[in-house]
């Protein structure tokens, strides 16, 4: 599924786009509308759905509508502004979630940077040597089929054995490594496709200039890869966040949003609205990560032009 998303070539047609500010306002409008629709659906199902959900055979295909399983939207929202626990001096819930989320974001960002670097280097090597492409590409695709849950504890135990001079492996690094493991894939595939995208005409032009591999890379292949790279980087950001959250859970790292999800889920019977707070936090995290990459994309506007006259 990831490969398919990355492989989609950018459209060569130039569309007459509406003014950027209006397009942006429209995008935000649709985003808000989508959120409102989701909230309405939630409440509507809670109101009309069967109290015990829908069970076919042994499988529950629709959830229970009780306050325990599906608290009202406003209860969940209101809960965010109450203290985490009744203990004296406890933080307000949204702040606790935000602090955990920012830790996870930092780890995911580290994983993203490592993953993007590795992905770009792999794509460069595969572009440079045909043999490397046929040797490495199957393994790169295979690598994504290893289940994260199985893989996380192994990384943690390997990491704990690393100690070079003053450097000591930290637990968060294991999480970052796992995040990078999910992030590198779309970048490697997308960048390779982008590096290979220039047509014969442009390649022969570079040849007529008698320049070597690196200059062809720098002046032609890398700029041509930008439209392929932007969606790949965005996907990598979302993957890094998911990877970091899941890895926090499976390596048992304290302080991140993954930990909070598990911890609050354990308290859901007494405080159902609270359990949804870190989930909202994780969603916000993904949006922030993908949004930051989209901002980078806006800076690379000129690289998304096409050759055709409009």
């Amino acid at each position, binding site marked *: 599924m990831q490969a398919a998303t990355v492989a989609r070539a950018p459209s060569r047609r130039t569309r007459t786009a509406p003014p950027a500010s209006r397009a942006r306002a429209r995008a935000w409008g649709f985003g808000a509308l989508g959120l409102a629709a989701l909230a309405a659906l939630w409440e509507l199902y809670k109101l009309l759905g069967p109290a015990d959900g829908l069970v076919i055979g042994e499988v529950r295909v629709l959830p229970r509508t009780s306050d325990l399983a599906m608290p009202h939207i406003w209860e969940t929202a209101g809960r965010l502004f109450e203290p985490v626990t009744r203990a004296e001096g406890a933080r307000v819930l949204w702040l606790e979630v935000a602090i955990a989320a920012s830790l996870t974001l930092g780890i995911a960002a580290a994983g993203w940077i490592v993953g993007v670097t590795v992905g770009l280097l792999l794509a460069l090597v595969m572009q440079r040597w045909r043999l490397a492409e046929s040797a490495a590409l199957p393994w790169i695709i295979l690598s994504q089929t290893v289940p994260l849950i199985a893989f996380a504890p192994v990384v943690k135990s390997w990491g704990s054995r690393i100690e070079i001079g003053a450097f000591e492996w930290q637990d968060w690094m294991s999480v970052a490594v796992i995040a990078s493991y999910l992030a590198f894939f779309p970048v490697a595939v997308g960048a390779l496709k982008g590096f290979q995208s220039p047509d014969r005409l442009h390649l022969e032009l570079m040849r007529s200039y008698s320049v070597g591999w690196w200059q062809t890379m720098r002046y032609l292949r890398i700029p041509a890869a*930008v439209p392929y790279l932007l969606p790949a980087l965005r996907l990598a950001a979302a993957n890094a966040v998911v990877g970091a959250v899941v890895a926090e859970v499976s390596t048992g790292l304290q302080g991140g949003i993954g930990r909070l999800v598990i911890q609050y889920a354990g308290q859901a019977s007494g405080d159902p609205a609270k359990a949804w707070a870190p989930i909202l936090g994780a969603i916000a995290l993904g949006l922030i990560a993908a949004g930051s990459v989209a901002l980078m994309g806006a800076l690379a506007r000129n690289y998304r032009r*096409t050759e055709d006259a409009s």
Partner: protein
Amino acid sequence: MTESVITTDAVTVTAVDKVFEAAAGQVVALSGIDLVVEPGEFVSLIGPSGCGKSTLLRLIADLDTPSSGSVEVFGTSAHQARVDQKYGIAFQQAGLLPWRSVAANIALPLELHGSSSVETRERVAELIALVGLDDFGDRYPDELSGGMQQRVAIARALAKKPELLLMDEPFGALDEMTREYMQTELLRISAETGAAVVFVTHSIPEAVYLSDRVVVMSPRPGRIAAVVPMALGSTASRADDLREDGAFFEMITAVREALHGGAPASSARGVENR
């Protein structure tokens, strides 16, 4: 540099064959080609589709190598000439880099070969004026018409002041009016730069209007069937009124007959008679 003879030919093609190994067997694209292009001379290659015009141009540009025979450009091998950037090239598609502005596209060959930025800026300004795109330096290729894009491509090909310009149907995608305008522009530019030009075309009037000599090729295998000198005065002195001149029509007839192997045959595939 000091010992080179002043009268070195721009292009010397000697006994060149080019055979492509295709899945369906061998394709003899060129057979026994001999051709000399003098410095400053404008030579057109014309012939039906598939007769090897582009192949011959690509051999001169060292984008491909001959199966046998030799290609020399200004007294050195075609390969050395490419390394030394002795020629500029333009294709049927402009082939501009879409993320670079007009000025940056023209500057590309200069940047690649380490011209200083002051030098580059001056040269680009000159070239933009030469091809008549004065107010378009900051535009991007997708904001230009096809004719303007092609002018940028020609400016780019001229950036390093080459003494040889190789062009493969550069006006093939343009409408007739733009095309005639561009032809006159090209004559002016080649007169101003003094460069030799090897020009591939499908159009007989275009070849006649532009050239000192028209090389007529025939297919299967690709050969030079005839070389027709244009008795129309120096290319630098030609202007649009030549198109209505009797001598012009005589030359068109001469080229057309050469295309049909001397006999006044009715049609030659792939060649426009307009």
